[in-house]
């Protein structure tokens, strides 16, 4: 599903260069729940942004479902993000003037779904994340946990092949954080491939496999025994 070869990412110019990713090789099979861990500045979010096509690596290859993404045009990358990838951000990243259901419906409309089809999907997805009663609330009227659930609903509504989550529990209290992780686990059980960046050990145990980064390199890989 995901095949990363010799991936490098360097920021800055010739005078001051920061090598954030240094030769990452990683494969993620379909249906895996992968956790990426590491200290702050280790490069875990940067790695996720490269795999999630939100940024371009300095060198190396990212192959998603057999497609070398670096050979795609900007428009093709946007389309791939729309149809095959889903994102959950640390700060929820919801559009403030839209209601929960409107936040979820936008990518569906962009895909060309009719308004009726899209509404049905939104209703079903919000129900799946336990928020059907909050469909017409704006983000400012929702708790942090609820906002993250809306964010997840938006990310999964179009059945993406891969779901990316960048520290999805970082801004949440323990109870909300746990419920979000359990939601991810349930999705994964249904076959959803998930790549999650986290620095919280207690949530890492839900992953199938943990890769640990240090100074832009994978230093450890742990395959979990118990999900």
């Amino acid at each position: 599903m995901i095949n990363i070869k010799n991936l490098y990412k360097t920021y800055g110019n010739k005078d001051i260069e920061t090598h954030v990713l240094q030769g990452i090789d990683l494969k993620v099979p379909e249906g895996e729940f992968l956790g990426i861990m590491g200290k702050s500045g280790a490069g875990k979010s940067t790695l996720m942004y490269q795999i999630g096509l939100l940024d371009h690596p300095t060198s190396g290859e990212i192959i998603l479902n057999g497609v070398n993404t670096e050979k795609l045009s900007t428009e093709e990358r946007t389309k791939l993000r729309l149809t095959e990838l889903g994102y959950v951000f640390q700060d929820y990243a919801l559009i403030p003037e839209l209601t929960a259901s409107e936040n979820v419906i936008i990518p569906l409309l962009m895909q060309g779904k009719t308004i009726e089809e899209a509404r049905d999907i939104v209703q079903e997805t919000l129900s799946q994340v336990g928020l059907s009663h909050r469909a017409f609330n704006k983000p400012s009227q929702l708790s942090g946990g609820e906002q993250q659930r809306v964010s997840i609903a938006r990310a999964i509504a179009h059945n993406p092949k891969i779901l990316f989550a960048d520290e999805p529990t970082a801004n949440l209290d323990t109870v909300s954080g746990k419920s979000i992780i359990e939601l991810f686990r349930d999705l994964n059980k249904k076959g959803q491939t998930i790549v999650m960046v986290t620095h919280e050990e207690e949530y890492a145990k839900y992953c199938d496999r943990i890769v640990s980064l240090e100074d832009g390199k994978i230093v450890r890989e742990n395959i979990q025994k118990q999900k």
Partner: protein
Amino acid sequence: MQMKNKWMNVLRVGWFLALRQIKGSSRATTVLIVFIMMLTFLNLVVVSGILIGLIEGGNRANKEQYTGDVIITTLSGEEDIAHSHEIENTIRNMSDISDLSVRYLAPVQIEANYRTRRDFDVLPDTAGTQIVGISLADEDSLSGLSKFVVEGQFLDESESGYILIGANLLYRYSAGFGDFFASLEGVYPGDEVKVTVGENTKTFIVKGIMDTKVDQVSLRAFVTKADFWRLVDRTGLNANEFAMKIAPNSKITADEVKSNLVKAGFADDGKIQTDTEAIPDFLNQIRIAFGLLGNVIGMVGIVVASITIFIVIFINAVTRRKYIGIMKGIGISERAIEISYIFQSIFYASVGGLIGVFVVYAMLVPFFYAHPLDFPFSDGILVAPIADTMLKFFLLLFVTIIAGYIPARQIVKKNTLDSILGR
């Protein structure tokens, strides 16, 4: 087909986002922007409309009070219009003509205050003008001449020896024009004046003073047709002007009436002109110049409006840069996001413009028609032809679309991740 669907999706999402953003934005800000758009539109339409209206108001008055829809005047170098009787009969038999005034003109010298003139070294109080002999009922029906009597009374066919004098022949009315007109002093209704045509002099009692902004009325003196022929010793009884008005319900145009008169062979006898042809060329030149001036002023307004929209959209897009990045991140196309801003610009411009259209046609045009601007040479109205107004409306729309697109494009094209992370 796929391309069509893609654009449909882009438009649909753009519209969806624009609608929510407008709904979610501050009402006070929205009202202010719409207000600015309305003022810009009014500036575009009203300034040039008023400037043109100064000339147009004069033209309209000229038509209503002097030429009618078609006028036949004496050919240059001729004393009168030949075959006048035949022309009059022909016009009166034209079913589409509702009013006809036949005018008889002669150059005259009017002298006032001659009874009180004691010093013969002082020049007599005289003014040169044209005296016009008219059928009172016909002229009043065509031009409403009696409405312009500001002092005294209108003439009466049953009376003789009375004269109506145009206000600009009198000093107290024409003083504002400086020494432009040779004018008479202290002439009031009831006063006696001497009217001289060639060697022939007769006295008339001033029956009334007429004041309009049409020189052919306010710089002439009027008597009944009978008094005219008592005063003027001219061979033949030919007329000098035929002014005619087309019946209100008639579908014939002034050009067609003129064409019919030309076909009848009267072009050899008199100069046949429609009301628009009778407008002096310099007035048309002024009209064009005023129109250009109005458009230049309007363009300044357009620039101000486009800068306003640019700033509004730019600030909106900059403050929402993170969300623009997120939308791009989740796969919303750049075009859809840009179009959402274009739709917002269209909203501001079209709402402002439509309110402007309402203000122009429901308020300003009727107001200026009822209360024209009082200029020395005309009663200024607001001229706003619908085609011209629509053109300006779409011009405003086009400019604001561009002004909205540029800042949106600037922000949308920024790196997606940088936008999301606020870098």
